[in-house]
Structures are given as C-alpha cells and as structure tokens.
C-alpha cells in the first residue's frame, strides 16, 4: 500500500510534483511505443499531452495507471512515482494504487447497470457498506460531474441509455466516487459533440481544484483551453514540456513549433 507523502511539500503546493515519470519505456511486442519519456506532473494542475496520432500519448497515460498489466504483449520499464513511491515497484498493489489514480476513457464506458449503481459501484467494491454513505457519495459525485440535475429523477434507469456526453460525465462521476488523487483522461471528448465537449471542458477546469488531472487530447485548441501545462509527444518521445502558454507562444523546439502552427499532425 502506498503511503501518501506527508513531508513539507505542501508549502509549495502550486508546484508540488504529484506524479514523476522517469525514463519510461513501453513496448508492445517489438513496437517501441514510448521512448525514454520523463515528465513531472504537478499537483492540482491540468497537464495536457498533445501530439499526432500514434505518438504514444495514450500509451504513456495508461502506464500511469498500470493498465498495461492486462496486455500480455506490453512491457514497461522506467519509473512512475506517485507521491515518491514507484507504482511499478514490488510491494505496490496495482489494485490499491488504481483507487488513487482514476481513469476516464476515450469512448464512454458506462457499466451495463443503473445510473446509481454505476457510481455506487466503486465505493461498494472497495468495501463501503453503509447505504446512506453510498447515497451521499453518489449524489456528490454526480453533482461534481455536473450530471446530477439531468439524472436525479431517473437514477434507476440504465446508464447505457444516456446520451454520449451524459455517459462520459457518468464515467467521470464514477471515477470521482472513489475520491482519487489523480484523474487520467484519454481523449475524453473525442467521441462527443461540440456542446457535450464544452461541458466536459468546463468540468475539467473545476476538477483542477481538488484533483491532479492529466488529459490526452488530439485537439490543440482543447489543450489551450483546459490545461495549465502541456507536454508535446512525437514518435514516442516527449519533445518538450512546460506551461501551456509558453509551449503555445514560445516553443523552444522547432518540431513543437511546427506542430503548434499546424505544419504537420
């Protein structure tokens, strides 16, 4: 079990590193998908990962949650430290770790059960038995995911029957129900229409207050709107990372500039 760091880092909360990725390599069989990637992800900030398709950003984000454990052909090396503990080290239970690092996927993936149960599911399987506490968590999470007003009168209906944008917010509520510390989002709005996208983006801006958010996006405009910091991926490597406005206005690397200005990608 990972212990939350309780050292004096809180004093410099704005720049505290929540997740430190060092020299991460991920292989799928012989395909070297992420190459020697290092990135500091800061607490209570939104970090956007941008880059052309197939550049390894989704692979990178999935490594922060050890989701590659499920893929037999995937191999991971390097360090991913959550509050200074390497999540790949022995003695770390990936199941316990994943409760602290939630994930929202590209396509909304509500479970085939009621709206209420979708959100109550996480707390239940993690040992919460008190019905009123669960009800409180469900309402809280749905409110925080900006979905409560739309679904409060039909909590027993199937989560699959919601619209795509509502499904995605339901999935976010499901993640919030576990009160994670880090929320990973893998192109959370790419399957949604523009109006649903705006809602998700507004939500991300609010999530920043309580959570550390990492978002993969193929849309630079979206990265510009929602993120505090941006990392630019190309061919599996991180070319450049820094404050979003700096990356967008004064990129240090030529390749970043070419991508930002739309010369490729």
């Amino acid at each position, binding site marked *: 079990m990972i212990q939350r760091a309780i050292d004096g880092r809180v004093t410099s909360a704005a720049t505290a590193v929540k997740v430190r990725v060092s020299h991460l390599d991920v292989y799928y069989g012989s395909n070297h998908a992420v190459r020697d990637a290092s990135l500091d992800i800061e607490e209570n900030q939104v970090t956007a990962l941008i880059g052309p398709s197939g550049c390894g950003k989704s692979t990178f984000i999935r490594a922060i*949650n050890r*989701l590659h454990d*499920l893929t*037999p052909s995937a191999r991971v090396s390097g360090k991913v430290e959550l509050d200074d503990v390497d999540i790949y080290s022995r003695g770390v239970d990936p*199941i*316990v770790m*994943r*409760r602290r*690092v*939630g*994930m929202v*996927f*590209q*396509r909304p*993936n509500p*479970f*085939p*059960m009621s709206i209420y149960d979708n959100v109550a*599911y*996480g707390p239940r*399987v*993690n040992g919460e038995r008190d019905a009123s506490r669960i009800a409180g968590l469900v309402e809280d999470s749905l409110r925080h995911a900006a979905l409560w007003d739309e679904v409060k009168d039909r909590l027993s209906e199937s989560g*699959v029957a919601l619209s795509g944008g509502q499904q995605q917010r339901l*999935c976010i509520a*499901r*993640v919030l129900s*576990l009160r994670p510390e880090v929320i990973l989002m893998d192109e959370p709005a790419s399957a949604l229409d523009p109006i649903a996208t705006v809602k998700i983006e507004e939500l991300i801006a609010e999530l920043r207050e309580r959570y550390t958010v990492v978002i993969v996006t193929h849309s630079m405009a979206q990265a510009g709107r929602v993120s505090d910091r941006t990392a630019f991926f190309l061919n599996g490597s991180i070319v450049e990372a820094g404050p979003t406005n700096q990356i967008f206005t004064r990129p240090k690397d030529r390749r970043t500039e070419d991508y930002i200005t739309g010369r490729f990608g």
Partner: protein
Amino acid sequence: MIAGSRLAASRRVSGIAGVVLTGFCSALAAGLLIVILGYVVVQGWSAINPAFVTQLPHPVGVSGGGVANGIVGTLIIVALATLMAVPVGVLTGLYLAIYGRGLPAECVRFLAEVLSGVPSIAIGLFAYTILVQPFRHFSGLSAAFAFAVLMLPLMIRTSEEAIRGVPTAIREGALALGLPDYGGVIHVVLPAARPLIVTGLLLAIARVTGETAPLLFTAFGSQFWEVNPGNPMAALAMQIFTYAISPYDDWHRQAWGGALLLILAVLVLNIGARWALRGRTKRS
C-alpha cells in the same frame, strides 16, 4: 442506360426471374412450416384438455388419460441439464473469450465444434454407458446428462461470442476503479454479456426439449408419477414416440396433442430468446 437495348432488357428479365425464384423458394419454405404447424394444431388440438395435461397415462385400452408425468419429466430433465450445462458452458466461453490463447484455446474450440456435430443418439449411448450400465437401471439423471452434453457446444459458442462482444473498455473501466481483474469480469463483463448468454441458453433448451433419441436408453420412460431423477422417468418427446407407433387411435390422438405441446414450448422459448435481446439492436 440506353432504353430498349437488348442487354438492358435481358438484365431486367434475369433480375425479375431472380426475385421470382427467391420469392418462390421463400414462400415454399414458409409454406411448408405453416402446413406442418397447421397440421399439428389441427390434429393435436382435440387431444388437449385439462385432463391431458394433469392426468397420468391410462392403461392400454382405457381411453382418456394424459401426459402430465411426461411434461413434468421433461421439465425436470431439462432443468437438470441446464444446471449442468450452464456453469461449464459459460465458464468455458469465458476462458475462450478472455484468457485462452494459443493451442489450448484452439483445441477447446475445435472439440466444442466437433461435439456439436455428434449425433444425439451417440451421445445418448455414451450417457447409457457411463450412467445407466454401472447403476443397472435407467434414470432421468442420465438423460439430463445426455441433454447437457448436447447443450454444451451451443452454450460455449454463444457465451464466448457474447463475452467477446463486451468492449474491452468496460473491463478496463472496472480495472481502473481498483477492481481485481476477476472482479471486473464477474461483476461487469458477465452482466453485460448476460442477455446474449440467456438467448443462447433458451435456444439450447429449445434444441434439446424435442430430442428423443438419447432418451430411449437413458430416461427410458415411465407410466407413473416419477419426480426422482434417480429412477426411470417419463418425457414428453418419448411419449409421443411410444404413442405414435402404437396401434390405438386414442394414443395416436394423444401423440399429436403431445407434439402440439412440444411445439408450443419451443415457440415460447424462441419468443423468450427474442425478448431477452429486446432493445439491443438500438445500442452501439
């Protein structure tokens, strides 16, 4: 698109001929089915009355009586077969869909396919050899075992397809919530696959309910109330067989009545299978 050209005309003719031919064959197939169903209904309808479904068979020569013990026997045998086939079938399907790869999985899949082609009488013979001979008497249980073997390949295939059809994203979603992998599979993937699995089960039940051959040397049949599957049991399909080849008009009538009951049961199962899938076409 030159009107009146010979090529266009011949194409139009062959197009029309194709529609007519396929339409004719479809009508023939549907018509045949309707004739069979209609004939069974006409013949069987007069046999069906409260006594037919609530009474035991009367002795030879005594008119009246019913097939209540056969109905109950069939229900018990099919229920036991379901209890045996569902866990093995669904778990095998789960293995093939999620964990199985390489040679072992291919072997299981191949064997299941072969099994689905084995004649039911051969399976009945097998059940006879391992569950009747050693105990020296026929039993409903041995019939249930034969039925379970018949249902198994269907259950395996539909379960595998149903579970495979559940998006990986759903499994990963459960994993990302801090669930052990088997937890996600049990609580999330299986429920998502359930409608399709239930459909497969109902069709498998419909498939075996009318099976007669394996019953001949397993359940054997009985003229009495028999609810203990350790003993020889009556079954509707076998009663139809016995009555139909008897020389008595009253029994012939009852054979048609039994056939009508079986067809109704299969019809209900098929409707149930469709009902289990309701609304699914709207999704995805």
